């Protein structure tokens, strides 16, 4: 099972370049897709989900070109878009039955699967309630359920935990970890803790380009010995922000405690253990500096 993204570019009308020469080879596991707003994450996911056509390059699923045979991928695809709607007059069961039919699942298998999924996303109690009355978090859970309807081999989830309460977020993370064994999962999110909990690989994307593709441990190694905590006065803070990558600040009685990510050793700073957020900010800053140069 493999998904190959080969030199994919996407240019929208009006000349906006959303993706540039993007290449990535994916095997079973959870890929955490990280990047700032407008980096091209959603465009990439739309292309992989056969919603948007790439301007250049190719996407192949088990060596089949998706542009030539999209159904080869669609049959095994589960997709949770960032923005999606539901039919307000249908209840959860009817909506999932509808999508199961559209996805080509047979009735008996669909029924069993829907029961199981509604339990999984904790909506079994409101299964007969019209979706129009669901809260944002409940709709998001319906979205998660529909993405898993056909037991997908490729699961693409775009900001899946947006709108979920902490309990549901933990439940979803656990679910992703459980599912990751024999399938490829692509998880796009701004919440680094979601990635920390589930991703086996991380792809960092900025300005439509792949900045880095590595395992979380490798990323953390990159910033090993580069994360510090220094104490500064409020008046010095703006100067510090210009000089270093800052991954966190907290005000205390002795000044502002600043978490710095830098290759140079700052004066009077204490070393800290790096987190993925530090690594993300460091790689992004390096990429921007490289692009500016």
């Amino acid at each position, binding site marked *: 099972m493999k998904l190959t993204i080969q030199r994919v570019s996407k240019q929208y009308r009006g000349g906006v370049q959303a993706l540039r020469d993007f290449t990535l080879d994916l095997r079973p596991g959870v890929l955490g897709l990280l990047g700032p707003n407008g980096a091209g994450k959603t465009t990439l996911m739309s292309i992989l989900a*056969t919603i948007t056509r790439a301007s250049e390059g190719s996407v192949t699923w088990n060596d089949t070109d998706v542009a030539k045979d999209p159904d080869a991928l669609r049959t095994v695809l589960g997709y949770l878009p960032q923005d999606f709607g539901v039919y307000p007059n249908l209840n959860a069961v009817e909506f999932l039955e509808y*999508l199961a039919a559209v996805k080509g699942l047979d009735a008996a298998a669909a029924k069993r699967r829907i029961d199981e999924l509604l339990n999984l996303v904790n909506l079994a109690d409101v299964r007969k309630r019209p979706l129009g009355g669901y809260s944002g978090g409940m709709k998001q859970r319906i979205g998660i359920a529909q993405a898993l309807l056909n037991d997908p081999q490729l699961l693409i989830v775009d900001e899946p935990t947006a709108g979920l309460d902490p309990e549901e977020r933990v439940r979803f993370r656990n679910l992703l970890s459980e599912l990751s064994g024999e399938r490829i999962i692509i998880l796009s999110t701004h919440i680094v803790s979601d990635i920390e909990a589930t991703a086996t690989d991380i792809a960092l994307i900025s300005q439509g380009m792949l900045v880095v593709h590595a395992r979380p441990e490798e990323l953390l190694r990159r910033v090993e010995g580069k994360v510090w905590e220094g104490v500064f006065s409020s008046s010095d803070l703006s100067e510090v922000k210009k000089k270093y990558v800052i991954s966190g600040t907290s005000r205390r009685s002795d000044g502002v405690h600043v978490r710095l990510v830098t290759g140079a050793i700052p004066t009077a700073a204490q070393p800290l253990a790096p987190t993925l957020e530090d690594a993300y900010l460091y790689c992004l800053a390096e990429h921007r500096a490289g692009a500016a140069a």
Partner: protein
Amino acid sequence: MNQGRVLYHLVVADFLERVRRYNFLVTLAAAVYLGYACYAGKVVIRLDEYRGVYNSAWLGCLMTLIATVFLSLIGFYIVKNSIQRDEETRVGQILATTPMTKTFYTLAKTISNFAVLAAMVAVMAVAAVAMQWMKGEVAHIDWWQLLSPFVLFALPAMAFTGALAVLFETLPVLRSGMGNVIYFFVWTALLSAPIGILDKAGPVNREAYFADFTGIVSVMGQMQQDLRRIDPGYKNGTALMIGDTQTSKRFLWNGLRGNSALYLSRVTCVLAALAIALLAAVFFHRFDPAREWVPRKRPAEVAANGERAIVATTSAAPSERHLTPLVRGPERGSFPRVVAAELRLMLKGHRWWWYVVAAGLFVASLFAPLSATHQGIAIVAAIWPVLVWSQMGTREKRWETSALIFSSERALWRQLPAVWLAGVIVAAITNGGLGIRLAVASDLSGLAAWTACILFIPSLALALGIWSGTSKTFEGVYTAWWYLGVANHLPGLDFLGTTSESVRPALYLGLAVLLVVAAFFGRRTQMAYA
């Protein structure tokens, strides 16, 4: 910031948001086409065998009437989405948190609607100038005669139409597709209201001026009066005609004669628009979901839902649940299941009385005399499911499910035909009584017309839905088509074949095929990969 500036910015922002959309260009193109149709002689004002010499007075009034008559109908559907758009974009919720009053908002929306419609009127005015120049029957352009009818009639009519659109959007039932259907009949009533009041042999009377929001009777009444002076043999025939426009005689018309009733009636039209905008503020929900109208539920149902909601939000700490691998059965991908799913989706969400009437029409058409079925019940049955069909091809866009549907296997080849077939089934069921009767009577030509009808309606709905992206297009076009063709038995437009003179099964079968092909290619362009 003073109130005037707030109003200005509200109107300008709304206006710019609309005119920068692709569909505004389409509507402008339609306005240009109307101008062209006029130039090509496809639309004329005809008084028996007469038409006016194409001088500034005649062309100004002709183009004004085309603008007021067509834009007061089509324009309504174009602008009836300004509040809905604020809801969909969530801008409305932001506006609701500002000190802006409801009156201010509905007034701003009315002015914005007016601005959009006035832009189209302006295109028609430019077309009038171009037309006089190109026709060359009278070289001298009298700017007052050419343009004053636009100011006097078209602009107040557009203000009235824009205000009605806002009122419809604020009223619970009228804001839906039902409102789009109802507006057609409101428009027909408004258009024909002054005709009944008009004194056909004399000058235009005061009441007719005031009842005439489009100006059609005011203008044509004066034309008739002037022609009677020139030709006493004139038999008072008058029409704004499309298509059959051959006239053998021309007369020189020197333009409108202003009078107090005319001017006052136009001011009244603007004041009526203002009053409607203010009335709309009474019903406007200010984006408060708690004030939005929802069908009433039985107390038990409400209570049950409430309890369920609590259950759903007070779960214990996250427990581990596991998914068993999906075992796919042998009948995977069966088309009938998708059709059944689409049919359920189509028929869900209507009030109980909708089903009762649909069932009543079916039963009545089964047992009533065949002539009564053909001339009455079947006609009603052909309009009853209009809001069911109008969702075809637009549902994915309206409810933002296209990413879910279009990423599914064989969406183009399985889901789209299923939508169409579900629409055909709805048509066949609601008009099923007539079909059964025709089959039993072995009326093959009737059966052919019936078959063409049930294939044509969903095909039209699907094609218009996919290409326009909104249910309003079908609701407006189909209602007008049904009214002219089926209800009034107009040959060529009668897709149901209600009379032996108006039946055209081959035409509608052919149209159905073309529309299905158009729908297919439309959907194909919506999808990245077909």
